[in-house]
């Protein structure tokens, strides 16, 4: 066990999987000579050479399609998108080809590929580059969607994603690359579809994932000062979704707040809120609350930018609403 940053944990996962399996390759903009826009791939070109770590032209549709073709042909590519905002250029490849190939070929072709990069708002990036796009990808059957919140989960889930025979969208966050945490060395694989209770509590269940997990934990600490004991469930993967852990928690606490940095309309968060409302109906003492990004393009003004995102205050307030406190 050592304390490393999120980016180092992801790098360790890539490094270990590339060393373990020659079919694992990395491609994307600036992943090689520049060592990655966020330095996740630092040193990998030097170690594995240009045949396995490939700098691509600035064409998401092109190199995403190349990656999908390579996966169908037998490799296990990891495609780095400099940010998920650029993945919009590659949507047709991901949704029409990667998500559908296994189904439409009757299982003859599988697409073992990982698309990874930072997702969600960071700071001062403007409306076009501050988007949380998981709800788009999670919408489509055939895609797995993974969103870790800690360096250890980042490493374990990335290794599991690379080994998975299906296309996996692996969501990181620009604001998380520098976060430190203890990470097991060597073989540490976190299976997809298993949520993790990051903080046990008895009064309310906060369901979240990715970057807002930290915020939820800080909100839980603030609530503890007021005698409210919040449980924080980190989903870790959205597809497949570990519904059982969520329901078991809500059945213990009778109250649920979903925190999701997506915009609220038809989102991962609104879907989970519906699932809980339906499947825990008789155990709910209050309607399920959703703390999401606001339903606006991200403002550039920093005050408004922060106001448009979930916050500790919004989570605390939602928890008090479901507790009638």
């Amino acid at each position, binding site marked *: 066990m050592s304390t490393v940053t999120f980016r180092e944990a992801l790098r360790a996962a890539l490094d270990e999987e590339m060393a373990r399996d020659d079919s694992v390759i990395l491609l994307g903009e600036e992943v090689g000579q520049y060592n990655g826009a966020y330095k996740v791939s630092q040193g990998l070109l030097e170690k594995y050479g240009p045949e396995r770590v490939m700098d691509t032209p600035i064409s998401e549709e092109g190199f995403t399609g190349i990656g999908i073709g390579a996966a169908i042909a037998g490799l296990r590519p990891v495609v780095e998108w400099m940010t998920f905002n650029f993945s919009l250029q590659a949507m047709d490849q991901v949704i029409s080809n990667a998500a559908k190939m296994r189904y439409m070929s009757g299982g003859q072709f599988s697409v073992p590929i990982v698309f990874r990069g930072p997702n969600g708002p960071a700071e001062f990036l403007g409306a076009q580059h501050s988007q949380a796009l998981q709800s788009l990808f999670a919408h489509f059957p055939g895609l797995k969607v993974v969103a870790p919140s800690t360096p250890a989960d980042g490493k374990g889930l990335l290794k599991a994603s690379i080994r998975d025979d299906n296309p996996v969208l692996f969501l990181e966050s620009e604001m998380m690359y520098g976060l430190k945490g203890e990470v097991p060395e060597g073989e540490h694989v976190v299976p997809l579809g298993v949520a993790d209770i990051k903080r046990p509590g008895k009064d309310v269940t906060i369901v979240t994932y990715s970057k807002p997990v930290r915020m939820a934990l800080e909100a839980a600490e603030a609530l503890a000062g007021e005698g409210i004991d919040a449980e924080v469930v980190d989903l870790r993967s959205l597809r497949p979704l570990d519904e059982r852990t969520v329901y078991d928690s809500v059945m213990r606490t*009778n109250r649920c707040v979903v925190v999701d940095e997506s915009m609220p309309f038809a989102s991962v968060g609104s879907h989970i809120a519906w699932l809980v409302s339906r499947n825990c*109906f008789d*155990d*709910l003492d*209050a309607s399920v609350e959703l703390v999401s990004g606001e339903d606006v393009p991200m403002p550039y003004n920093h005050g408004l930018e922060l106001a448009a995102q979930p916050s500790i205050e919004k989570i605390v307030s939602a928890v008090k609403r479901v507790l*009638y406190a």
Partner: protein
Amino acid sequence: MPEKILMIALSPTMETGTLARWRKKEGDTVASGDVLCEVETDKATMDYESSSEGTLLKILLPEGGQAKVGDPIAIVGKPGEDIAAILAEGPAKASVSKAAPLKPVAGPAASAAPAAHSSPGGRIKASPLARRLAGTKGLDLRTVKGTGPEGRVVKRDVESMPAAGGAQAAVRPSAPLLKPGPGDEVLPVSRMRQVIARRLSESMYTAPHYYLTVAVGMDELLAARTRLNAGREKKISVNAFLMAICGHALARHPRVNSSWNGETLLQHPTADIGLAVSLPDGLITPVVRDCGRKGIAVIDAELSDLVERARAGKLAPAEYAGATFTISNLGAAGIDEFTAIINPPGSAILAVGAVRKEPVVENDAVVIRQRMRVTLSCDHRIIDGAVGAAFLRELADMLENPLLALA
């Protein structure tokens, strides 16, 4: 003007009814007093007699469906009348129907609920969890004050309420909700079992029980029974003797024949004695009225008719409600003695064990006598220990020497 036919309370404790069978179909003519349908209440299947006349225009509740008391189950009117307005209304607010009014039965079971809290439309706002908890506690949500938004009843409101039974009720520990373990079979619970669970818990948790036991010599009574039955085609049962003699004892100890009614006592003029009769899944207590003034043969005839119909599920609510005293006899099951839970609105119940030959010391000699142990459960709110003891002593004396009942 088409008229809604509402589900009515066909038993004193009925809150919802299940429609067992429609005896009229849409288009049939309905006269006042006609049986519209059969409704399964918490205790029995009852005929629903119409107080309306006209044509059955629409059946709203299909067979097998459940409706709360006060919900519409059908529409009656003139043929061809427009019922769209009624259909658009949806479920009606709960109210007492004017159909076939039943005589209210005295005692807490039928006493009015505390002031209701509900929204103007009669709909009660409650969280799903609060609704479920109220159900397991036997609480009527209308009696719970909601503290959530717009008066919504939430978990804390239900938890702060005493269990059903009134202001004196102790807070009942909330029933733990168990998750079935491996191999556990989840069995559905009948309406009757729910009523038994609710009413007996209510009794046990609200009435402070205490118990008095006495061994009774039965030789004289059994000899008298043998003499009485000689030549009779249908033998008079020991239970009929017990009921008759309890009736006499209750007449002399009216306090035992009373009901707790919140701030007052109701002292009943007649000894209406229930006998616990077991059914395949549950039990029912048919009541023989005025046992203190009826002969044993009359009591026996009434009792055997009631027991027979109880086992067939054919008792009318008036025939099993309102016992002022109850007898539970497990002697035939080989039980020597036991304690029973008081059956409201009564305030005492007699638990009767088996008659056995026993060695007894009489005049410093050991003799063999037929003896039976009876245990009286008393509600201490009404019957203090000395009062209960005096009643039981006199009852035992009468059982040992039945002639005393005539004295």
